[in-house]
């Protein structure tokens, strides 16, 4: 996850030029956007918050001490933005009521990679993905964030802890409970 810019930033908190920051954006925007999209299920909001995330990062670069990787730091900003967004329930309620919510209900189920699998196997895989997707949607915010960082972003527990500002033990607890819920939902489907 480390890169030249990360280590350059991490070692001495050197001032970053505009060009260097644009390069940081290009390098990390996909992951930040994906994390926000899987967390929010709203493509428009994911796009907006990705932009906001990088803007905040730019404004607070001097506070980055290199204790974690730059990407982990960016994901922490993204997680905080997503949490603040989720707290704004009144807006979400009215947006849903007025049909202005861009949330994608079917989610990732339609995007199961087909590969060489048979149609029947793809169908079963879609059912599983839909069940996990629905189960993940019902998880509390923190559990969902831990779950997605682990199984979508494939991050290590220590990285998740750094990104969400948690102890590794807390990450394990959240992940264990999330897995129990997901497995229970998956069992109901099967």
């Amino acid at each position, binding site marked *: 996850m480390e890169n030249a810019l990360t280590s350059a930033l991490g070692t001495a908190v050197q001032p970053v030029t*505009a060009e260097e920051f644009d390069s940081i954006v290009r390098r990390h925007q996909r992951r930040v956007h*994906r994390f926000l999209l899987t967390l929010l299920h709203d493509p428009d909001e994911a796009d907006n918050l990705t932009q906001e995330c990088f803007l905040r990062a*730019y404004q607070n670069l001097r506070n980055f001490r290199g204790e974690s990787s730059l990407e982990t730091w960016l994901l922490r900003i993204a997680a905080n933005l997503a949490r603040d967004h989720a707290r704004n329930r009144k807006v979400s309620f009215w947006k849903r009521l007025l049909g202005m919510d861009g949330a994608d209900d079917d989610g*990732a189920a339609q995007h199961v990679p087909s590969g060489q699998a048979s149609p029947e196997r793809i169908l079963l895989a879609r059912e599983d993905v839909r069940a996990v997707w629905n189960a993940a949607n019902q998880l509390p915010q923190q559990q969902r964030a831990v779950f997605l960082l682990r199984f979508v972003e494939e991050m290590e527990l220590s990285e998740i802890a750094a990104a969400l500002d948690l102890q590794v033990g807390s990450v394990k607890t959240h992940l264990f409970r999330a897995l129990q819920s997901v*497995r229970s939902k*998956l069992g109901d489907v099967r």
Partner: protein
Amino acid sequence: MSSEQNPHEPLVERVLVGFDLTAEHHVAHCAPCQTERQKLEEALQQFGAANREYASRSEDFWDKQAAQIQQKRRESSNRARVVGALAPALAMLLFVGVFLVSQSPHVEPSAQTVPAVQTDSDHELLVAVERAVESDTPQALAPVAWMEEENDGSTSLPARSNQKESRSHEN
């Protein structure tokens, strides 16, 4: 895959969370748990892959997003630059203002006498108004009234006025 089928279920989650050697040892030697673990891991892998695919965008999208971020960053930099440029000027203005106030000529406390004079003139005005209101004849018509009084030989008017003035502000 329900709990009735496999009583060792929590161990599978513990294995997936990691760093639990006891659970690892159990699952390694328990066929039902191994099956459960494989199924769950497979579902989670598919979920992760589907989400990554779901979040994939065209290069145009990333270019556009990067350009928007760049624009916002520039606007933010410009704002910061303007604030940075204005702050010393504002500080200088404030300093000059404070300096001018401190250097202005000292005003004598004559202001304290003004209210007294004002009070006196107010009082005089009040008395004049009372006199005008209480007099039966307007000042402009006073000569006419005197002529009538001379004709009638009446003296009652000054006497009444004096009675009223005893309750007035002239005291």
